[in-house]
């Protein structure tokens, strides 16, 4: 298996015009810092889906330093932006919550089509590679063939899937899965839930019920709740994060589809507001196309040409 950094670079290879690289482009050929440069920087950040408010906040802090002549060189600006982004993302880092008595229950939530099932499958592969025993829970009982899709991932990764029929109560499936996990003494239970728009209050309360059910069987469960966020998502991502955090108690993010041209800059806004760590990034459809999100390496590899 290629080294982590290699794979990360590979994933980002396609995003050659990545966020920070573009910032570099902007700075290239500029001798001084002026309003035009700042505007270009603003557009670069907005173009990466960081959002107009967040972009302006970042630039405002820089603008002040420029005005006080603390920064003279456009190259220094690059470093400043880099440090700022790093600061925001690193401030959210925290160790994974692990259950004292296994299983550690990790629940995947998110809007439709963000990549929850695929991510669940990849996570199974990753935990297995780390020597953990894993069980999958097909709690997406709504979408046609979602259960089958997860089962295929189960076969690929030699992991058992706890399932019921389509249309079953997802809380009942979780209950079953937790019982099985305890009986089998597995380390990690990965729960795939149905995609739902955060505006549908009945579906959001379904998530609350699932959490309550889990906590009844295994105290403290779910130990982690990960919001799976498509990197192409724009400003709505922030509202998604807010609402899912409210109902499902999100503890971390997984940013998927980063192998495209989308930058996923909305996570900066989400991190700033909700202080959620980004756990993994998805960079392809294969089982090993899931990489830990490491702010430093992530931003560094963006800077490398």
């Amino acid at each position, binding site marked *: 298996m290629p080294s982590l950094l290699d794979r990360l670079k590979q994933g980002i290879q*396609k995003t050659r015009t990545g966020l920070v690289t573009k910032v570099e482009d902007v700075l290239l050929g500029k001798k001084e810092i002026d309003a035009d440069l700042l505007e270009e920087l603003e*557009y670069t950040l*907005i*173009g*990466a*889906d960081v*959002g*107009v*408010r967040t972009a302006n906040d970042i630039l405002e802090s820089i603008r002040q330093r420029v005005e006080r002549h603390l920064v003279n060189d456009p190259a220094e600006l690059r470093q400043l932006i880099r440090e700022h982004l790093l600061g925001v993302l690193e401030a959210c880092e925290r160790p994974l919550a692990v259950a004292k008595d296994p299983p550690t229950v990790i629940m995947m939530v998110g*809007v*439709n*089509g*963000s*990549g929850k099932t695929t991510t669940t499958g990849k996570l199974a592969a990753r935990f297995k590679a780390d020597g953990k025993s894993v069980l999958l829970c097909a709690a997406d009982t*709504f*979408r*046609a*063939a*979602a259960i*089958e*899709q997860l*089962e*295929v*991932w189960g076969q690929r990764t030699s992991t058992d899937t706890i399932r019921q029929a*389509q249309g079953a109560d997802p809380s009942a499936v979780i209950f079953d899965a937790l019982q099985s996990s305890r009986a089998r003494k597995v380390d990690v239970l990965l729960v795939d839930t149905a995609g739902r*728009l*955060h*505006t*549908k209050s009945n579906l959001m309360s379904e998530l609350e019920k699932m959490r309550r059910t889990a906590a009844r069987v295994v105290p403290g469960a779910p130990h982690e709740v990960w919001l799976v966020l*498509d*990197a*192409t*998502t*724009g*400003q*709505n*991502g922030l*509202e*998604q994060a807010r609402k899912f955090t409210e109902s499902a108690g999100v503890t971390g993010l997984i940013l998927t*589809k980063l*192998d*495209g*041209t*989308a*930058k996923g*800059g*909305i996570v900066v806004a989400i991190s700033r507001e909700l202080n959620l760590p980004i756990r993994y990034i998805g960079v392809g*459809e294969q089982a090993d196309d899931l990489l830990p999100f490491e702010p430093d390496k992530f931003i560094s590899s963006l800077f490398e040409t």
Partner: protein
Amino acid sequence: MFDSLSDKLQRVFKNLRGEGKLTAENMDAALKEIRVALLEADVHFKVAKAFMEGVRAKAMGQEVLTSFSPAQQVVKIVKDELITLLGTHAARLRTANQPPTVMMIVGLQGSGKTTSTAKLARHLSKSGHRPMMVSVDVYRPAARHQLSVLAKDLSLPVHEGTPEEKTPLELARGARRDAEQTGRDLVLVDTAGRLHIDEQLMTELQELKANLNPTEILFVADAMTGQDAVKSAEEFHKRLGITGVILTKMDGDARGGAALSIRHITGQPLKFIGTGEKADALEAFHPDRVASRILGMGDVLSFIEKVEQAVDQKQAEVMQRKMLEDEFTLEDFRDQLKQLRKLGSLESLLGMMPQIGPLKELKSAKVDEKELTRVVAIIDSMTPKERDNHMLINGSRRRRIARGSGTSVQDVNNLLKQYGQARKMMKSMSGGLLGKKMGKMKLPFPNPFGG
């Protein structure tokens, strides 16, 4: 979620009253806010820039119509321009001269292609077609099974494929043969989700197109897409020549600025929007609704237009002067209430109001339609002199008015109290923002149901 545009514009236009013409200077702040609104709605920044330049050029030097405040006028220009850009009429689906017609559904992973394919099949079968579906997604686990399940629910046929049909093209060809043999006039080809930069898979789509000769290649885009919408749509269009767009997940609260980006970059019409997970949650695309949504301003303009239609222009001007000069009599009050009735039910009107500044409280206002009738009856029972000068109305006059209108003295007292409050309010408003603003909007009522 965001401050509504109306909120912001109200702030901006605090300093912009009584301007005769739109100029670069007096529009600048408003345009800046509109730019932010577009960016927050995920319109691509270059598209937003181009759009704003168009609006600026169009608005420059325009007379501010008496019926609008400059704020409303700018918003109206912006909205009209947005609607024009989004496409002014609902686009139809083309069918082939020689059936079966083939339509391809393409897009990124997770945009909603399979669900949209099923919805489209249902829509087409409702309008008299006999569609057959086929999934050529040989990559995602259980993708083909997903379409089969959806089709079964709709009692519509799916070409399941034979063991020999392994590639997407073989499957699609098989489906077309199947359709010909079973008398189906339409084949909907649900393709695998793919990244626009995936050379191999994009070539696969080009091959499908070359061999299937589809009349429609519909690009399915997620309404929540951010700035990247431009890149993916551009590449799909460049490779395939898409013929239309289906914007999905519009039942969420994303503002859907991607619609404008995609339309701008491809020039192809937005044909449908997806508004739910059920098979019937597919609607024709309405540019005006999406334009309002992108701007985040509710139906403020349709409200303004409705008021415009219902209110007699001259009468409104007189009323405005009276309001400002504190000559607002009970008779005027009654006329206002009568005009208000012409607009339709108050509940529906309130629903159309933007939730802006001082009007925010209106949302929670409970309106008793009968109350209005009673108020009009009370005023009708007054003598002209009394209507002209409410100070005349003493105890015995109150009793007479109550008897005449079939109400109680208490009701009369209440009305007089409300009227007094309304006058007071107008007096205080006449110097402030709302007075002018309301005057410009020609809102025909002060606050008849206040108190």
